[in-house]
Structure formats: C-alpha cells, structure tokens
C-alpha cells in the first residue's frame, strides 16, 4: 500500500515519538520491583542488605508477613547483598531513597543526614549500651533500629584445633595463636582463610588488629585529621609475617566469602577473622560443625578484646518518606522481644536491645563466656570510628596487596596515608 507524503510523514513522526517515549520510560524513577520508590502509593519500600538465600532473609520475611497481616500495611522488600551499598549510594544521589533501608553499620557516619531521628521511639531506651558509640551522635540521637549487636573476633573450627591438640580457650596470646597456626599449616591445612575476591574480608583482619595497635592518643589524632603511620605499618607487618609463613589459603585471590563459610563448615581451615554471622552461614552448610569464636589477643599489653558495633541488620527510616509513621510502626514491631530475638538468632549475633533472650545454639558457649558475661571489652570497628568515610576500601586494598605480595609494607602504608588525606579533605 503506497502512502501519501502526508501519511508517510505522519507515520514517521509517530514512530519517532513512540521510540522516544519508550526510551524515556526507562528513565522512570519507579523501583525495579514495581511501585514508586519513594512510597508514593500504599506500599512501603524496604531496601535490605542481605542475600535472599540467607537465614536472615527467611526470618525477616516471616516478620514482614506477620506485620502485614496484623496491620494491613504493605511492605515491598528488595534484598541485595553484594550490590546493596553501591545501589544505595546511587539512590541517595538520585534522591530516590526507599522508605526503609539497611544501614549496615553506617547509620551515624554515612546515612544520618538522610535518616529520621528515632530517639523518641520507645525501644530506643533499650538499645544495647555497647552500641552507643557506634549509633548515637553527640546529642544522643539514634538514627536506626539495631536488629543485632555485631560481634567479631577469631572464628575457629574446633575439630581442626583438636586434631593438633590445641584447646581454643588457651589461645590468649599472639604467641599461642602463631604456634597453633604453625601446627595447622604443618598438616597441609591453611591456618587462616580469607576471601580476596570479595574485597572485604581481608579488611577485617586489618580492622581487628589496628584497633588494638593504635593507642588512645593516636586514635584521637586520626580522628582529628592526622594520619599516624606507625601502628598501620605494624599491623601490615603482622599480615606480612603471616603471609611469609604460609598461614593464608593458597586460593586467597579467587576465594569468596561463601568459600569462607564452607571452609569453616568443612574443617578445611582453622581460623577466620570475621563477624560471628559467618558462623551462622557455616552452620547452615554443616549443622554439626564444631565452630566458635575467641577474643583477639592484645599485642599492646591490654585486655583481650572483641570487635563490634552496629550490625548489618540495622534499619533506618528515610526522612523524606511518605510513610514515616507506618515505617516507625514496623520498627516498633521489630523491637518486640520475639521478633528482635528472631532477627538476632538468624544473624547469629547478639541482640541489639537489652532484655531480649536469644538462643545462640551451638555458639552459646562462646557467647556466654565472652559476650553475655560482659567480661570481654568490645572495641569499635577501627575504620568506622577512626578513619574517614570511604577509607575502608583502601584498607582492604592495601592489606590485600600485602597478602598477594603486590606491595611492600612501606608502600602500602604510604598508600593508606595518601588516601586518608584525600578522604579527610572531602569531609
């Protein structure tokens, strides 16, 4: 059929307009899972930092379902693990903030300017005091509900230690730790398992050691804008020594965090430096795994310590949310003892609120001895409190470069110093 020139022109214009409008709909600010990301309709958008195949997610989904049934509110949950942080930053930059989102340890230092203060909530009085330094600002304001008190230390597989005749409770000094590690390596098993591919776990080694090596004056200097290099060099030297002695797993560069959980579960490593949530993942792979955790020995004559603070499962309300009251109601629902306990147990962590009884399962002996008893101090995560926002990535990279022999201690320390200055200048 031959079109007239006018009809041909009209057809081309229509096709062009349709093409353009199709392309522009791709720019829609709607959430990928449907609905308005700012919660403009009846559904609250909840952006979660957790894998959809984790025990946390299962527990969380059950709690959400109960809340929806009780209140009639609707919550659309989007769970992302490895890409959560990057996507969250993109959404903040685009002013496309979900009604509720995980603050994964950064409610105060990164996200507070975007979050609704929650100090007027009834549960805020019951927040574990151990979290105050990590979650409350100078005025005592809190910006997220703590679903857990994250605890980290030396995770261990008891069967591996038993096979070399070592009692985990005896590992109260670095000499004892190194001696045990040597024995493990002699059996052909890596003493310390870390995941280089995920660009995060090796940073925990650095974090856990650094918080002890910096004294109070040096920590204050670091907060005030002066990078103190000596303790950083000391920390990297320890990592260098462990590398030289062959403590780390051979497949470090290609290993993932999932491999870390499997290694603990299968007894193919002795130690890992990570939060206790990894033990829950290991137990998911092997419920009979003989695993636990220990405090880190102090290298400076202080008390043996754990590291901890705001955990991954902490949740804040966007201050631009159209569903603030409903979102706060949901957080209050999470704060009910049964739900708070459920969340903490799924995460394998201590609860974020006092007065919540958690069944730690096979981890009970470690928790009762070191956490619940209150006898072991819990130091904050070094990078979150003492380094500028964004320095974590460099801490991971410089520590990684030591383990992979890509850099010397001097060069790695210098790189950390450079990045510290750059990031501090941004603040």
């Amino acid at each position, binding site marked *: 059929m031959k079109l007239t020139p006018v009809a041909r022109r009209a057809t081309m214009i229509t096709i062009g307009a349709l093409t*353009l409008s199709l392309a522009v709909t791709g720019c829609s600010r709607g959430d990928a899972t449907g609905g308005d990301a700012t919660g403009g309709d009846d559904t609250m958008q909840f952006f979660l930092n957790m894998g959809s195949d984790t025990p946390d997610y299962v527990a969380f989904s059950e709690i959400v379902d109960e809340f929806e049934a009780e209140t009639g509110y609707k919550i659309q949950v989007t769970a992302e693990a490895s890409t959560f*942080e990057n996507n969250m930053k993109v959404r903040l930059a685009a002013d496309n903030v979900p009604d509720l989102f995980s603050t994964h340890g950064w409610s105060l230092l990164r996200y507070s300017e975007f979050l609704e203060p929650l100090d007027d909530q009834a549960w805020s009085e019951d927040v574990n005091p151990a979290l105050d330094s990590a979650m409350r600002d100078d005025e005592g304001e809190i910006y997220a509900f703590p679903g857990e008190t994250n605890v980290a230390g030396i995770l261990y597989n008891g069967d591996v230690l038993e096979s070399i005749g070592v009692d985990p409770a005896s590992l109260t000094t670095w000499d004892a730790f190194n001696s045990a590690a040597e024995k493990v390596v002699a059996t052909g098993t890596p003493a310390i398992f870390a995941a280089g*591919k995920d660009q995060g776990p090796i940073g925990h080694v650095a974090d856990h050691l650094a918080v002890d090596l910096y004294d109070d004056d040096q920590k204050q200097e670091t907060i005030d804008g002066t990078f103190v290099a000596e303790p950083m060099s000391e920390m990297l030297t320890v990592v260098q020594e462990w590398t030289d002695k062959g403590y780390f797993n051979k497949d470090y560069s290609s290993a993932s965090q999932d491999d870390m959980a499997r290694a603990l579960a299968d007894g193919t490593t002795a130690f890992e430096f990570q939060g206790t949530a990894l033990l829950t993942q290991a137990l998911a792979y092997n419920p009979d795994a003989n695993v636990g955790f220990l405090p880190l020995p102090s290298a400076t004559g202080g008390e043996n310590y754990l590291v901890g603070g705001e955990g991954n499962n902490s949740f804040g309300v966007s201050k631009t949310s159209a569903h603030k009251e409903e979102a706060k109601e949901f957080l209050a629902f999470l704060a009910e003892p049964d739900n708070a306990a459920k969340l903490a147990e799924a995460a394998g962590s201590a609860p974020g609120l006092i007065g919540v009884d958690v069944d730690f399962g096979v981890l009970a002996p470690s928790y009762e001895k070191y956490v619940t008893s209150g006898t072991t101090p819990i130091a904050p995560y070094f990078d979150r409190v003492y380094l500028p926002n964004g320095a974590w*990535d460099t801490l991971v990279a410089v520590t990684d470069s030591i383990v*992979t022999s890509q*850099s010397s201690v001097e060069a790695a320390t210098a790189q950390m110093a450079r990045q510290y200055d750059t990031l501090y200048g941004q603040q």
Partner: protein
Amino acid sequence: MSNGTLTRTATPVTRSTGADPRRKRRSGRRGASMNLMYLPAVALLGLFVFVPLVQGVELAFSNWNGYSPDKTFVGFANFAQLFTDTTFHTALLNTLLFGFGCTALQQILGFGLALVLDGTGKARSVARSAIYLPVLVSPVVMGMMYYLLFQYDRGALNDIMIGLGLDRVAWLSSGTSALAIIIIINTLQFVGISMIIYLAGLQGISPEIYEAAALDGASGWRMVRSITMPLLKPAFVSSLIINLIGGLKLYDVIQVLTGGGPGYSTNSVSTLIGRTYFGQQAAGYASAMGIALLILIAIFSIFLVRRMDRSGKDA
C-alpha cells in the same frame, strides 16, 4: 526557394534552467520533515551521552562523595592527582595492555582464521558460526564461566589437574597470570569480529588479481604478503579500531574474574573508576579518571580513523 516574403516560424521558447518552483518547494518541505526524523535519535544521544558527559566533566572538578547533596569545587586537584597516583598508573598500563595486547592477538588470529575459513562449504560455515558465537555472549557470563574454570577450589581446570595426579594451581592469585588470563578471555571472545571483517575484505578481492599473480609465479605466502594483506588494509584498520576501543574499555570480565585484584594488579581504568567512585567514595576523582580515559580513547580513535581515510583514498 524563397518567394521573397519572410516567414516567421514559431519556435518553442525553452528556459535554460528547468527547476519547477513547485517541485523545489515540495523538495524543501520533504528535506525539513526528514530532518525532523533525526530528532528522536539526537534527543536520545543528548540525553544518554552528552548530558552525562557534561555532568561528568562538572563532577571531575569537585570532591563529591557520590551520594551527598553537597559538592565542593576543587579546581584541577583531581586531575593533578592522576599524575601522582601509582594505582592509576598501574590501571592505565593494564588498559593499554588489554587494548593493544588483545587487539594484536585478535588481528593475527582473526586474519589467520579468515584465510583458513574463506570459501564455501558446510564445515567452514559451521566453524565460522562457532568462532563468532562468543561475541554474542555477555562479557559478565563469559567472566563467570572462566572463573568457574580457573577457580582454585572446585575449578574445572584444577579438578582435571587433580585427576591427572598434579597439584592444583592458584591461577588467579598472581597478577601476571591473572592479566594473561584476562587477555586470553577477551581475545577469544572477540576474535570472531576480526575474522568476520577480514572475511568480508577477502571476498571483496577479485580472483583475477590472484590469477594474474599466479601467472607471474607467485604462490602461497607470497600471494598473502604481496596481494592479500595490502588489499585488506581498510579491513585491518576497521578491525583494529573496533577491537582497540573494546580492549581499552574492558570492564566486565575483569570485575567478575578478579575484581581488579590481586591488590590492584589487574585493574583497568574502567574498573578502577568503579572502585574509586563507590568503594572509596571519591566520585569527583573517579570522574577525572573517566575524562582521562575518554581523551585516551579519542586520541587513538582519531588517529586510526584518519589512517583509515588515508588507506581508503590510497585504495
């Protein structure tokens, strides 16, 4: 024979220019409406290319952290940092390695495959399709497949080595071996593009030229060197440009296979931009890196396109 009277014969008057004004007006209206057809493409280009480019340049002069509402102008500080940042230098060297290394291998292999697979026949046709197939696979999928191959624990290659009684190898634990693996993956994935370009070029060469050369006593490699390769110069430049730009922009395979590690040793500028923007929350500095990469690719592209124009004229 004239009868003494002048006879005027009317001759038709013809105008020397034949343009009918009505036709000219219709043609002008058609031209204007055809220009309107470009608008959607121009709008899309503007929205998705030029606007982000301008915003990226603006960001490069700030110390924005990537998510805060505040941005502070810092002048040329980010660009100055490029000259002293050894991590960026490593990434830049790797980028050039990926760009030129992969391209060189793709030209050699692509040309060789084109020579072997030029012609008719089902076997040749199947082989060409098989070699081109990886081009259609997403680089992310490609990276994942090779990660499962080279993984230390449970990787297919190490499982084969164990089966043969050999020790496992940590293929991705060394910067050198990881770089080599990335180059091999990228080369194998996109060698099909070079092959197709050379095949098209080969089919444009008249068989009579080869017949004439054969009459003069040329054969085999002499024919390839003296006839085929010179006549394939335009194809060579096209293939070079396409593969070089792809290699210089390499991101997906690196991100999936090594994440830029071990350390920073396998980062390209593209992966370093991502890490700097999100991981280090230095969006301004990352934008400066992006501008540097843009300039680098533009310089190579302009040089090669000019070369291609000259080759085309020579041909």
